[in-house]
């Protein structure tokens, strides 16, 4: 059985207790998307401010467990200031990291594993241990899926 230290790395606890980019933006101009984790009831809202093809700023509000909250906080730091192309790659990398195993439901994640270096991940690497706790994968991916939805809503 994997130990708690695999899951609750120090960076995670730090981001959980001191979440970055917490709050809201008026929408519009911000793009806003809501995410639910139907398994546990967690809810999260992502607000992004675009400038050109980059995420100029981001805010996150909602309720969630340490994994979902810290993942959201880590994500906000990772994507802030990045171009949409860069964000897209981060999204792919993150999903790939989270699909080393099958997810909570035993389904193989749809995303193809892609090549990346740990360096690209930055602090996100702290979430690597989550895959050993399949049920928690949905907690870690909630914010990323919600961000994706915000970007897609904008596109359509």
């Amino acid at each position, binding site marked *: *059985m994997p*130990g*708690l230290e695999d*899951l*609750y790395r120090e960076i995670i*606890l730090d981001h959980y207790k001191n979440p970055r980019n917490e709050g809201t933006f008026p929408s519009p101009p911000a793009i806003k998307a809501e995410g639910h984790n139907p*398994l*546990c*009831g*967690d*809810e999260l809202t992502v607000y992004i401010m675009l400038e050109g093809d980059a995420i100029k700023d981001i805010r996150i509000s909602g*309720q*969630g*467990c*340490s*994994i*979902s*909250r810290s993942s959201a906080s880590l994500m906000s730091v990772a994507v802030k200031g990045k171009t949409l192309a860069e964000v897209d790659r981060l999204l792919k990398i993150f999903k790939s990291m989270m699909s080393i195993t099958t997810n909570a439901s035993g389904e193989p994640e749809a995303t193809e594993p892609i090549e990346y270096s740990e360096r690209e991940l930055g602090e996100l690497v702290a979430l690597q241990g989550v895959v050993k*706790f399949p049920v*928690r994968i949905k*907690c870690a991916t909630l914010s990323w899926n919600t961000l994706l939805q915000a970007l897609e809503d904008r596109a359509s």
Partner: protein
Amino acid sequence: MKSPAATLKPLNVSEIRKDFPIFTHHEGHALYFLDSAASSQKPLSVMQAMDNYYSTTHANVHRGVYHIAEHATELYEGARVKVGRFVGAPDPATETIFTKNATESINLLSTSMTRGMLKSGDVVVLTEMEHHANLVPWLIAKEQFGIEIRYIKLNDSGYLILDDIEELLDGAKVLAVTLTSNVLGTINPVAELAKLAHDRGAIVIGDGAQFVPHIATNVVDLGLDFLAFTGHKMLGPTGIGVLWGKKSLLDALPPFMGGGDMITDVRLDGFTPNELPWKFEAGTPPIAEAIGLGAAVDYLENIGMDRIRTHELELLSYAFEKLEANFDSSIIIHGPRNVNDRGGVISFDFKNIHPHDISQILDQSGVCVRAGHHCAKPLMRHLGIAATARASFHIYNEHADVDALVGALAKAQAFFS
């Protein structure tokens, strides 16, 4: 709720645990199973009843003339009578319908009722503490047929607010209410509510999923017209639920699903439904599961529902005492403080620790509790939270389980402080 006589012989839990293979299996790395409200464990006798059936006499029921098919039918219909009697059905052979779970039992009602009994604008009264199983079927009926839903509200102690109950029930066609809340543990005053509803001509549906497995149930004393419950929470197998209904109402209700066994005649242009109870059982029923549920009922009756209730009350008191003593103001326990008003369910929250994290850390100590919205999102919103952690009991639980819970919670608290 009056508590059963204190003179009942206490359960011999260590003997009982030997009847449940899962506790033997996990003996080494101890299993503190505190999630029976989600699904209970099964005694060996339940598995054996099903295996015996499959190994000696399985065949499809109701239609075979050969002996194993006849015997299968006898076992299946025998289980029906047993399960119906267990909840005090006056005519168990006719009024007891097997479904796949409590959820199907309620969907059967909401769907069949909208095929004749309920029409647009008709009022169904629910409570804000209902499980999704007793909410979403009515929301679908609302969406599809325009029924109106009214809710009985809750007070801060986790009880139904009955001040305006007569108003709420005024003109209502249906009152559908849970007997025991799966989150708050509240045991609702269903007999009282049923009387008020009947006085106004409403049909009364009880959701017994959390009540029937733990407390001696009598549909007549409770004043119910329908009662839904589920096998897997009462030591029975998965894949089986029950709907009990008053014969006259079941007779008046149109069928739910169509298919084999539920018909008297089928023509290319129409069909004639079968008699009760088969009218509501389309297709091959969960035969082995009904037999398994019958064995679960035998097991429960053999121990005695009143002894089980007494045992759970004692555990509840012990747990309250320990949790309050150890965590004082850092823990919030939801629902009534008087254990006599609760089923064996304790939902709680810790400041600064999310239920998911609690459950995760408890798991490291082999303590199994559920974290989440417990399929009661409107109730969660009422409580102003997204999730709780929930510990729940059945006959195989003992003080050691509560002690392990408290110990592991202390660890979680340390971890996140």
